[in-house]
C-alpha cells in the first residue's frame, strides 16, 4: 500500500470528498500509517484528543464506558473517520476505539490537521459543509423522534 492508495481511501471519507487531490496527498503524506493488533486500543475514553484516524483496512469497535463495564455501541469498517470531533472541538475522547481484528489506520496528527485547515480555506469549507450536513441530519432525527 502506498501513498496513492491512502489518497484513494481518504477520498471515500465524506468529510474529505470535496478536497483537492493534491491537498489529500499532503494530508496523507503528513499522516502516519499505523497497525493495531486485535484488541489494541486506538485511544481510550477520557484521553486527550491528539489525532484522528481513518481506517484503511480492518474493523474497530466503538466502546462506551458505563458503570456496568464497556459496551459496544458501533463498529467501524474501512474508510471510516474516527476521532475527528475531539480534535476539532478540543475535548477529551468521548468513547474508546479498539481494533476488532488486525487493523491498519492512517493517523492524522491534530496539530498538522489544524495547520492544514488554517492554510487551505477550501479544505476548511469542505469540513464545514460536512459538519453542517451532520447537524442537519441530527436535527431531522430529533424532529422525527419528538413527533413519533
Amino acid at each position: 500500500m502506498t501513498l496513492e492508495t491512502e489518497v484513494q481511501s481518504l477520498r471515500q471519507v465524506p468529510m474529505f470528498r470535496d478536497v483537492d487531490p493534491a491537498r489529500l496527498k499532503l494530508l496523507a503524506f503528513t499522516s502516519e500509517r499505523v497497525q493495531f493488533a486485535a484488541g489494541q486500543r486506538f485511544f481510550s475514553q477520557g484521553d486527550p484528543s491528539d489525532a484522528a484516524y481513518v481506517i484503511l483496512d480492518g474493523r474497530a469497535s466503538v466502546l462506551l464506558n458505563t458503570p456496568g463495564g464497556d459496551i459496544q455501541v458501533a463498529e467501524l469498517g474501512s474508510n471510516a473517520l474516527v476521532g475527528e470531533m475531539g480534535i476539532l472541538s478540543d475535548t477529551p475522547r468521548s468513547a474508546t476505539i479498539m481494533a476488532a481484528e488486525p487493523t491498519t489506520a492512517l493517523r492524522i496528527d491534530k496539530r498538522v490537521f489544524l495547520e492544514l485547515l488554517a492554510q487551505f480555506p477550501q479544505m476548511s469549507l469542505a469540513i464545514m459543509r460536512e459538519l453542517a450536513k451532520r447537524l442537519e441530519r441530527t436535527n431531522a432525527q430529533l424532529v422525527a423522534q419528538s413527533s413519533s
Partner: protein
Amino acid sequence: MAVPQNGKRDSQANEHGIPALMEKSLFRYIWTHSKRDQMIVCAVVLASLPFYFMSLDLPRQIVNQAIQGEAFRDGNPTAPFLNLSFDWPGWLGGGTWEIFEGFQVSRVGLLMGLSFVFLFFVIVNGAFKYWINVAKGVLGERMLRRMRFDLFAMVLRFTPDALRTVKSSETATIIKDEVEPIGGFIGDAFITPVFLGTQAITALVFIMVQNVWLGLIALAVIAVQFTIIPRLRRELLRLGKQRQLASRQLAGRIAEVLDGIEVVHVHNAYGWERAEIGHRLFNLFSIRLKIYNRKFFVKALNNFLAQLTPFFFYSIGGYFALRGTLDIGQLVAVIAAYRELPPPLKELIDWDQQRLDVQVKYDQVTQHFAEERLGPMIEAREAAEADQPLIGPLMAEDIRIAGPHGDLIVEGGAFAVELPASVALISNGGAAASLLARILARRSLEFSGRIRIGERDLTQLPAAVTGRRIAYAGVDPILFPGSIRDNLVYGLRSKPVGRLKEDRQEMDRRIAEALRTGNPIESISDQWVDYERLGAKDENELDRILLDLLDRVGMGDTIYLFGLAGRIDPERHASLAERLVEARHRLRETFQSSGMGDLVEPFDPERYNSQATIAENLLFGVPVSDEFKGRNLAENAQFRSALDRAEITGDLIQMGLQIAETMTEIFEGLPPGHSLFEQFSFIGADELTEFEAILRRRSRDEGSLKREDRTRLLSLPLAYIEARHRLGLLDDAMMGRIVEARALVREVLEKSGSAGVEFYDPEGICTAAPLRDNLLFGRVSYQVANARGRVAEAVAAVVRELNLQEEVERVGLEYQVGTAGRLLSPQERASVNLVRCLVKRPDILVIDGALAPFDEARGQQLMQLLLEMFEQQSLFMVLPNDRQAGDFGVQMRFRDGQIITDKTAAPASKPSTPEPDAPQRITGEVA
C-alpha cells in the same frame, strides 16, 4: 556600612604575585615585572653592535683592499690578513697599537679570507637577530600573559555595584583584544630607545666633531621635531582614545543585541538595530578618518623637518664654505653623517608614537578596572582557618538595610535564632526578605549592624569557609557550558587536593612559566574534588551521590533519557560497554518472547532495514565526519564511486526525480517557512523552486541532467525511509541491490583509510551512535501503533533487570547543558542549580526563588524534601506568603522596617514518612 576588610590595597603583590591594582604607568608595570629580561636583551643588543658595524665596514675593505689592491699598493706580494690594530687619535699623541699583526696572504687569499670573514659576520649577525627577536617576542608574550591574568583576577573582584555597569562583552574585548598591541610593544619598550638612541647620538656626535655649528643646527631641528610633533600627536591620542572606547562599545552592543535577540524578533526591531549599528560604524569611520588625516599630516611635517636640516647644511654650510670658513671635505662628511641620522630618528619618533598610543590603551584598560570598582583581594589559598560548622546562636543586632534608591528597608532590625534551624523568610511584598537572604548567604555586604554566628562575625568569615559551608540558590540558575556533572561539582572545586600524574618535564616547564608570569601553578587536570569530604571514595561514588540527589529532586527520568541519547566512551564507561551487547541480546529476546518482534526492525548486515533511511542502509554505520553527514554524503567522492561500482547511481537519481516531483506537487501553495516543510518535506522551502527548475530542465532536455543536478537529486532518496514516507519507491529487488552495494561502500571506505563512518557491528558497540541505538540495534517501526512508548518501556525494563540504570544515568551526567544551560528546560536548570547546592552539604542553605520555575505542587514537594534533608542543618527560605510557613521551625516577618521572628509552636506537621537520617542517605544506593 559593614565594609569588609580592604585587604592589601597597595600595589604590592600578594603571595601569588597578583597585584591589588594595575600600575598607573605602563612603563613602571613593565619594568617591575621584566627588568631582568629587559636588561639581558639590552645587553645582548649592545654586544651585537660591534659585529654589526664590522659587517658594514667589510664590503668597503673587500673592494678597496682585495679587489682594487690597495693593500698591495707598494708592490708587496702579500698583505696582512686579520691584522688587529688601533690608531690612537691625534690628540692622544697618535701612533698605532698593534694587537695582532695578522697572517701574510696573497691577493686571492686576502679576497677569500675577507669574503669568509664577511660570511662569518653575516651568520653571527643573523644569529644575534634571531635570538633578540625570539627573546623580545617571548618577553612580550610573558608580559601579555601576566597582564591578561592580572586583569582576569580583577574581573573576579568586581563589586556588585560595578557589575551593574560593567558589560561582560566589553570586559572580554579588553582582556582579549585591547591588551594585545600592548603585549607587542613590551618587547620594544626599553630596547628600542636604547638601541636607536645610541645610533642617533653617535651620528650626532660625529657631526658635532666635524663642525659645531652645523651640529647645533641639526640639534635645533631635532629639538623642534621632538617638541612640535608630540604636541600635534596629542590630538591623535585623544582620537585614539575615542576610537578605542567606540569599538569597545560596538563589541558590547553586538553582544547585547545577540543576548536579547528574542526581544528584537518579538518587536520586529531589526530596522532600528541595523540603524543603531550602522550609526556606530559611521562614528567609528569618522574617528578613523580624522585619525588618518592627522596622522599623515604629522608624518608629512616630520619628513619635511627631517629634510630641512640638509637644506641648512647646503645653504649655510655652503655659504661658509664659499666664504672659506668651512672645509669642503668637512661639509661632505657632515652631510654623509647626517644621512645616517634620520632613519634611527624616524624610528625613535615612531617608537615614541607607539609608546603614547600604548600608554593610552593601557590607561583605558586600567580605568575599566579602577579601584572603586574592585572588591577586596580574594585570597585563593587561606591558612587552614578554624573551619568549624556554622551552628550555634545566630544573633543579629541593629540591622539597617538600604534599598537601591537609598530608602531604608530594614531599620534597627534584630533577631536571634538557634542554628541549625529551618527559617521561613516571609516576604511582605517588598525586597526585605530577599535582601536579608542575600546577606545571610554572604552574597551582599551592603548593610550595617552586626550578625554573628556563635562567636564569629558573619561578614568576617573567610571566603573558604563561606564557600564551603553556605550555599545559595537564587532565581537565576547560572550554569556554565559543559556537562551536567561539571556543573554539579562546580561548588566542590575550591582547591586541588591531589595532583594528577603528568609528564614531569612538561609539568616543570608549565610551573616555571606560571611562576615567571604570576599565574597560578595549579592545573585544571589535577584532582579538584575532595571526595572524602563528601564521603565518597572516587568518581564513581560521587556520581552515585549526584544521581541520587537528582533523582530526589525529580530529575532522575530526565537524566536516564539524556543517558540513552548520549554516547558512550568505552574507557570511561567500561562496565557498561562490556555489558551493552549482552543487554542488546536480552532486549531482542524480550521482544521475541513477548510478541513485540515487529516493533523494532534490527540492523542486519544481510538485510534491508525498511525503517531506516537509504543512506543508513548503504553505510550501515554512523557518520563521524561532516563529509558523510546529511546532504554532504551525496557529494562525497568515495561514496559516489562505490555507488557507481554497484551500478545503482542511476536508479537512485531516478528515485530522486520521483521524490522531487511528488514534493513539488504536494507542497505547492504552502508559504515558505511553514512548519510542515521543516517537519515533513525532503526539500526545504527555499529549495523548492530550484528542484522545480531541475525538473523543467530535464523535461526540456529530454532526460539528460547536469552533474550538479544529479548530485542534488541523489541527495533526496538518501533521506528516504520506505516505511515512513510510503512513496512506494523501493521494491524487493532494489532493496537487495542496496544491501549488495553496502558491502562495496564499506570496502571502498575501508580501502581509502577514511575514518568518516563507524560501521555497525552486531557483536560490538558503535561509539558514534547514541546509547539507545546501541541497545536497540535497530529502528523502531513507524507502522506499529504506539511502538515508541512500548519499546521505551521494554528498554527500561531490561536496563533495570541488568542493573544498568545507574550506568546509563552516568552517561546522562555527561549531557551538555549549552551556553548558560540553554539546552535544558527552566525546571531542569533549576534542579541542577539546587543539586549543585545540595551536594556541597552546606551548614546553611539559603533558597530565594530557586523553586519558582516549578509548578505549585512540585515546588511544595521540593520544599518538603529540603526540609527533610536539612533537619540537621540550617535552611533559610524566602516564601512569598505564609501559606507554607508552618512547616518551618522559625518564621521571620518584615513589618515597618522591623524583623519579627516567631517560633512555630508545634514545629512542622511532618511530611510523609520523615526519616531522621535523611541527609546521610545521600550516599546510599540509587533506587
